[in-house]
């Protein structure tokens, strides 16, 4: 069939061109939505930005805001789409990621996530005011952010709080892979079949309603 020939030649050429161009522009910026997710590892917060499972946000701007809207810190994601920072304060943290081409999203890390697993039942709310008080009554999560417990001078016997801090630290270390896996499982991702079929259903429904209205008007 000679009439098909130009079409086929054209298709092959264009497909090759597309492939070739794709090699030269491997930008991941084509996705429609950027996701940002954060989890706590020890005294640091890990932030991950990604367009999809395989496309991470490289060099995206990360900004962290406190509950009062004040900017606490900022940085850029690395080539794995990760950015980590030391917990600046134990309040809700709003993490805003700005990727290229108008993509932006945020994630709020709740204060109780920052407190860490073992130290949620803290006896005193603000113990960091006096240095000597910190050694004695600091809740388990605190020494890691303020001053490492190793630096404590002349505490020879292991008191209860010290022990708790050590257990907490060891647990953190052991649980870290698990926490990371959980975080990855919890990460938000793209739409599923329900959303897609739901959308198609909506379009059919709108069509039906409009056609019904029109047909009633005509009669």
């Amino acid at each position, binding site marked *: 069939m000679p*009439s098909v020939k130009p*079409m086929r030649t054209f298709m092959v050429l264009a497909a090759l061109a597309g492939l070739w161009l794709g090699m030269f522009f491997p*930008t991941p910026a084509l996705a429609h939505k950027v996701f940002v997710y954060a989890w706590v590892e020890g005294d640091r917060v890990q932030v991950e930005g990604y367009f999809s499972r395989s496309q991470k946000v490289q060099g995206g701007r990360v900004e962290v805001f406190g509950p009062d809207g004040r900017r606490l810190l900022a940085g850029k994601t690395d080539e794995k789409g990760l950015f980590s920072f030391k917990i600046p304060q134990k309040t809700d943290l709003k993490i805003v990621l700005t990727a290229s081409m108008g993509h932006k999203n945020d994630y709020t890390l709740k204060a109780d996530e920052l407190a860490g697993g073992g130290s949620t039942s803290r006896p005193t709310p603000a113990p960091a005011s006096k240095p000597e008080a910190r050694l004695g009554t600091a809740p388990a999560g605190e020494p890691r952010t303020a001053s490492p417990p190793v630096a404590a001078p002349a505490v020879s016997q292991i008191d209860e709080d010290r022990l708790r801090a050590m257990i907490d630290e060891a647990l953190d270390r052991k649980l870290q892979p698990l926490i990371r896996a959980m975080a990855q499982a919890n990460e938000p991702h793209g739409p599923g079949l329900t*959303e897609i079929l739901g959308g198609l259903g909506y379009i059919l429904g709108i069509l039906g309603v409009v056609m019904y209205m029109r047909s009633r008007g005509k009669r």
Partner: protein
Amino acid sequence: MHISEGVLSAPVLLSGAVVAVAGTAIGLRKLDYDRLPQVAVLTSAFFVASLVHIPVGPSSVHLILNGLMGLLLGWVAFPAILVGLILQAVLFQYGGLTVLGVNVVVMALPAVVCHYGLGAAARSNMRYLSISASFVAGFGAILLSGLLMAAALVLTGESFWPVARLVLAAHVPVMVIEGVFVAVSVQFLKKVRPELLETIHAKR
């Protein structure tokens, strides 16, 4: 091609919304309601097209289909894309409701341009003219959308050239793929359902 919420400034969002409303009104006035099912089918295609990822080299791209919408729907592309984007925003969280107007304009305005600039050529019986016109429609619609998107970002304070270059470079593979897709679709329709290619605007 979806701009997220909280990126653009209020004047840009507002003017986008105004243009989108105007375009939608024109589209609804021009629509030949007997062909509404065709509009619904194309809206559905647009709605799911963004989920169809085509691997290109190490990256992957997705179809937008606004060139095809333009050739087949003309001004009606505005209401069709509006519905598609509302559903994408609500169900997929692509874009957002405040940026809806800007996103509609970014994708629908090039469709209308394609309709008037290339519609007649794409329907022509000369094979090469038809193929190349529909390819240019698919390619050019994305190009124009990219420029509009860069313009929207620029009006919010970014400098034009870096943004435009980034947006366009990122979309070059999509342009080519859409060009091919539209060319193939139009040739296919010409063979199987030539009446679908006739302009959808009501004759009055």
